[in-house]
């Protein structure tokens, strides 16, 4: 939620710090596409580390991370193609040719919107002056026309009619808050103080998040007290309050 508010970081706008380039990611990608930066010289592994890195502020939500990974893998694929190429004396792989043609078609189709975005950006700076009155019309709001329950049925039936894609093939990561609560209770039973970092040691981000929820829940019901001496530092969980 909070990331969606205005002024919050844009994943493509985040700064990357490489020997070759220092600045926002989207600028880097633009420069690469325009061949103003040679992809062969771009250290992709370092870029991946910089974009998805371990810095606290570079931890994005899952959706953003996957978006970034798709982008970075496309870049890696392009670089691999340029490095390995196809031997000049062999017929190029028709699939590869087709993929490149598709990419070219997409870039050509997209170019107008990128330029329109630049137009909008300029207009945004030019049009920032006027202010609109946002005072609601006073007085009692008029009575609302009664709704038709049939409209609700139609909406529900339309929803049920969608053939939603199955996600059964995806390896779903599951993490249970009640289980995490039990695990934390066990840990608190063994010692009166638990380090959050040590408690989650080696677990993935989802389990980490669930462990934090568990700690907050135990704190809420009064079974534990949370203490974080340093901002962004380790959290100490103390039990035995009741």
């Amino acid at each position, binding site marked *: *939620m909070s990331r969606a508010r205005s002024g919050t970081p844009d994943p493509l706008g985040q700064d990357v710090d490489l020997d070759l380039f220092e600045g926002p990611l989207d600028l880097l990608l633009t420069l690469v596409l325009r061949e103003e930066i040679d992809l062969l010289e771009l250290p992709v592994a370092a870029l991946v580390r910089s974009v998805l890195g371990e810095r606290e502020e570079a931890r994005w939500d899952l959706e953003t991370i996957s978006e970034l990974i798709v982008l970075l893998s496309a870049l890696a694929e392009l670089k691999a193609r340029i490095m390995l190429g196809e031997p000049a004396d062999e017929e190029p792989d028709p699939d590869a040719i087709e993929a490149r043609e598709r990419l070219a078609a997409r870039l050509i189709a997209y170019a107008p919107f990128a330029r329109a975005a630049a137009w909008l950006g300029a207009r945004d700076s030019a049009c920032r002056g006027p*202010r609109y*009155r*946002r*005072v609601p*019309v*006073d*007085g*009692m*709001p*008029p009575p*609302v*026309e*009664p*709704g*038709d*329950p*049939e*409209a*609700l*049925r139609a*909406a*529900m*039936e*339309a*929803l*049920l*009619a*969608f*053939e*939603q*894609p*199955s*996600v*059964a093939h995806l390896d779903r990561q599951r993490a249970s*808050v*009640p289980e995490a609560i039990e695990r934390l209770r066990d840990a608190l039973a063994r010692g009166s103080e638990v380090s959050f970092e040590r408690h989650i040691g080696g677990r993935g981000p989802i389990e980490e998040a669930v462990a934090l*929820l568990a700690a907050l*829940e135990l704190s809420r019901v009064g079974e534990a007290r949370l203490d974080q001496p340093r901002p962004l530092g380790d959290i100490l969980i103390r039990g035995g309050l009741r």
Partner: protein
Amino acid sequence: MTALARAVEALLFLSPEPLSVGVLAELTGAGELDLDAAIAEVAARHGEGTGIEVAEVAGGWALRTRAQLAEVLDRLRDRPPEDTLSPAALETLAVVGYLEPVTRPEISRLRGVAADHMVSALVERGLLEEAGRDGAAGAVLYRTTTAMQQRFELKGTEDLPPVESFQLTGEEAGALKRRLLGGGHLGDGPQGDG
């Protein structure tokens, strides 16, 4: 108009509350005498025969519409609000109505778009309300309000027209709800619920 009068005019136009000379002085950095003159200048521009006027009310100055125009302005007030119920709002109400109590993630999964914004808006409009927490996941549950049921002239959500592909009765309803909300897709078969 002087620059100060233009600024005062725009401030009175924009402010939802009357502005006192003190507040105007703070905003413009001008002195009270200059402000009195500026207010008089604005008032003169909106004299008899225009649609709006400057008035001293509630300890401050305000721009407002003229009393003689009340009739046409009431028609604006009486216009049914444009945003009665958008298709998105209707869909969300339908999901909650048929499946309540239901959590936001469940609504999102069924609608295929994030529901947070819409659910909050409908709670704010008094059409949905919180109904405790889901035991397992701890997520907030939502249900329709009396106001929603009145709006659709329902005795209760059991009064909703039956949806063809399912009947919400007893155990079957529970099983169906689990299936709809459980997997993020309608059943594992190619066609979903059938």
